[in-house]
């Protein structure tokens, strides 16, 4: 197993470089003369743009910028080969340096560190809510297939699929914030993680978390409950379930001990794949609810061509996808003894 994990980790290196290269090229070739953090205006002269681009190192050929960012250029420099690339060379990814934002000059890792806890607060709550609700929902649906309850759950998950998160979010805001406020009822804050200045205690944070977490979990819930249901149905028709029943085992034991454990294996993959979603999956919800998370940071910085910040977050997300996949495979083996890696 350990060998397998190491092999997978090694295989991930080219993937990370591939992802970063593609991201870099996408940003680079759509950027044009746009300078991160700089708004276009008439008093901004072409010579200002040229000067600031040069200060930021954006005037170098794209491969030099990329090699500099990755830290390969720094190796060159140490090997006395800096002359090949020319210009300023900094430490890069390989030296563990994610670079500095091109907009405010602060370290990208500091940005990630600042936003990550907010995103994790939102997504982990949503995923937990999703798991806790979707599994019983799926199991009930499978056990009472064709019943009114099953149809209701089906309709609910179709709705969860079909209703865009931003729309649901806006409707909730309209109802629980604006209308409740107008009606003189207790109302929920429409945006942010905490009340500025006066808030920030646990109750305040939970109150702020309620709507965004509900909206985000709604998406997970509708997908996962369907998976649990169909996978449960399949497992319930297996021979060993009939055997268990034939042995006179209690139905509850059959369902939850024998069937469910096998039924949740595909769900483990899904949840594992949701790991990078821990970081970026809540983007739309983060935007609608003004949640200062990492998805919103990436989105905003991408539109401002803050190359280093976007590259940093992308790399971070790529590492999480790889880790998530690996974790899902390991979980597989834990959940299903038939699966062995060598």
């Amino acid at each position, binding site marked *: 197993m350990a060998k397998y994990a190491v092999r997978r980790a090694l295989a991930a290196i080219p993937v990370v470089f591939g992802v970063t290269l593609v991201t870099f090229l996408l940003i680079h070739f759509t950027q044009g003369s746009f300078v991160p953090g700089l708004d276009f205006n008439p008093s901004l002269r072409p010579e200002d743009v040229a000067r600031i681009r040069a200060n930021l190192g954006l005037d170098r050929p794209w491969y030099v910028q990329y090699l500099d960012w990755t830290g390969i250029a720094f190796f060159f420099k140490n090997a006395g080969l800096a002359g090949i690339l020319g210009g300023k060379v900094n430490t890069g990814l390989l030296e563990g340096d994610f670079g500095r934002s091109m907009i405010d000059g602060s370290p990208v890792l500091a940005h990630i560190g600042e936003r990550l806890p907010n995103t994790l607060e939102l997504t982990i709550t949503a995923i937990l809510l999703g798991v806790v609700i979707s599994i019983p929902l799926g199991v009930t649906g499978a056990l009472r297939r064709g019943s009114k309850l099953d149809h209701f759950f089906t309709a609910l998950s179709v709705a969860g699929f079909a209703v865009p998160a931003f729309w649901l979010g806006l409707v909730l805001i309209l109802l629980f*914030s604006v209308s409740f406020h107008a009606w003189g009822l207790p109302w929920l804050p429409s945006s*942010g993680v905490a009340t500025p200045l006066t808030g920030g205690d646990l109750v305040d944070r939970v109150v702020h978390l309620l709507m965004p977490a509900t909206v985000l979990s709604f998406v997970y819930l509708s997908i996962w409950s369907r998976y649990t249901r169909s996978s449960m149905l399949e497992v319930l028709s297996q021979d060993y379930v009939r055997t268990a029943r034939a042995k006179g085992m209690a139905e509850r034991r059959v369902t939850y001990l024998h069937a469910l454990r096998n039924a949740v294996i595909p769900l483990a993959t899904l949840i594992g794949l949701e790991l990078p979603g821990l970081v970026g999956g809540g983007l739309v919800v983060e935007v609608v609810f003004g949640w200062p998370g990492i998805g919103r940071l990436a989105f905003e910085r991408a539109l401002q061509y803050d190359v280093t910040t976007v590259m940093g977050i992308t790399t971070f997300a790529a590492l999480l996808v790889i880790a998530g996949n690996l974790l899902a495979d390991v979980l597989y083996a834990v959940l299903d003894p038939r699966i062995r890696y060598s």
Partner: protein
Amino acid sequence: MGTNPDGFDRFDDFLKEWSRRDFMRRMGSAAAFTAFMAGGMEFLAACANAGQGQPTAQVSPKEGGHLTEGNFSDVKQLSPYLISDTASAQVVGLMFDGLLGAKANGDLIPMLATEVPKAAADGLTYTFKLRKDLKWSDGRPLTSDDVLFTYQLHWDPKYKAVNSPRRGDITEFVDSISAPDPQTFVMKTKKVYAPTLIKFAQQAFGVVPKHVLGSVAPEAINTHDFNRAPTVSNGVFKFVKWDTGQQVVLARNDNYWGGKSHLDQYVIKVLPDQTTVANQLKTGEIDFGPIGEPFVDDVKAHADVVDVVTFDVAIFDFYAYQLDPSKPGGKLFADNKVRQALFYALNREQMVKSLYFNLATVATGPVPPVHTWAYNKDAKPKYSFDKKKAEDLLDAAGWKKGASGIREKDGVPFKFEVITNAGNKVREGIVQVFQQQWADIGVQCTPKPIQFTELVRQIQNIRTFDMFMVGFSWGQDPDQSDLWHSRNTAPGGFNGGMYKSPTVDKILDDAVSTLDQNKRKQLYFQLQDAINEEAPAPILTFRKGIFGVNKRVKGLTGGDRGLGTYTQFGNRPWMKDTFVADGK
């Protein structure tokens, strides 16, 4: 683009409504729909409470509490020498004063200086006397050394490594800067230049502490902590903390030259979009914030919580013809009659009603009415909607209707594309009106919304468009060289339509090289007639600024130092007198 009150020049909606928000706006439209459904009763309430932000009656100010401002543009950085966007300027303006500031109508007022200086007899030298006993928020004295250092960051060649976006501009006009004694700062221009004080002495050049940054190497200033946490300042508030994507918290600066603020704290909350700003105004989560046109009626329905304040701003929406004869579009629009004809064919009253919700006025020419002394409401021609005149002009220009209903000349059909930024609902609406109303006179115009950055590149550099449609925002000075002067047809300039007129160039140059306002006025009247007559880029509408202000906030609206045309962004002399009625 344009020059905002403090000289923070900006391409109007490039900032206010560019692509990020455009994406949000599409989401916002869903909210507008649901808000409409929920609004049956609220509409009646709105009719009953049609009053708008009345000037505050004289009441004795309440001390304490905080004010929360909401904005849908994120703050980028907090150092006066690096910023170029309005969201950052708003926060920076509360912490850093320049030598001068402005009243709501744009008149200059002294801030760190004791008075607004007059140019010396040579017309070039401006001597600023600093107020006595100026102090930084940390108690250290603020002297002309700090002022000199601030201007060096922008002007002195040894600070070229600092990413100041104002270096090119100030080095073009300013010849020397000096501080002969601790209370005096002298700026000398290279030639007589009327907008000198407006452009180079206001908050765009907010004074920064030399005792913090003076010893920092130029290239290290771009990444200095001061850019995110400016711990020493001279304005009405000082920095407390910045939670990115959430809020910036400021506290009262007890060392402020103008006296202590009534407010203990000031919070600038970063919100995702216009919808949220409107919603939080309604719930009172924010006290103060800008309102997008589509949300105005909705916010007015909550008149028990929030007042809606509107005022004219120096922003217009316009479209520009391609006039470069080497481009296909340039051939279509070379004839003045054609340019006029298309403008006559547009029903702008209707646009104002249906696209701007009546929160704009039909433009009379290139100078907006807020440039009071330079504005000529009778600039000619007037271009009232006149379809017949449009058709006659096109006939006279030799564009005859062909069998397909599209006009032709020498076998060339009258077809072209108009570009604008995708997702901006007002602009997308306007170019659709172009398409319909020009089709009525046999001209085929195809709207082509493109990405914001691509649009900028088209206007400033590539310039292969037939026509573009955007907004432009101006500063306090009526100089419009940015848009009309032939030197700004150079790559990177904003005269993207390549309009070149020796007459207009001369008017513009003469108007900035005299300090005599009467002479300037006559020249700008000439400019308005010339631009109207030649119609290189017809001005469609003059825009309005719209803000929501919570009922509990006092001392913010009304009076020439209140919230208005030139005091809505970074320059906010009213902040000192603002208080919250409940003291919370």
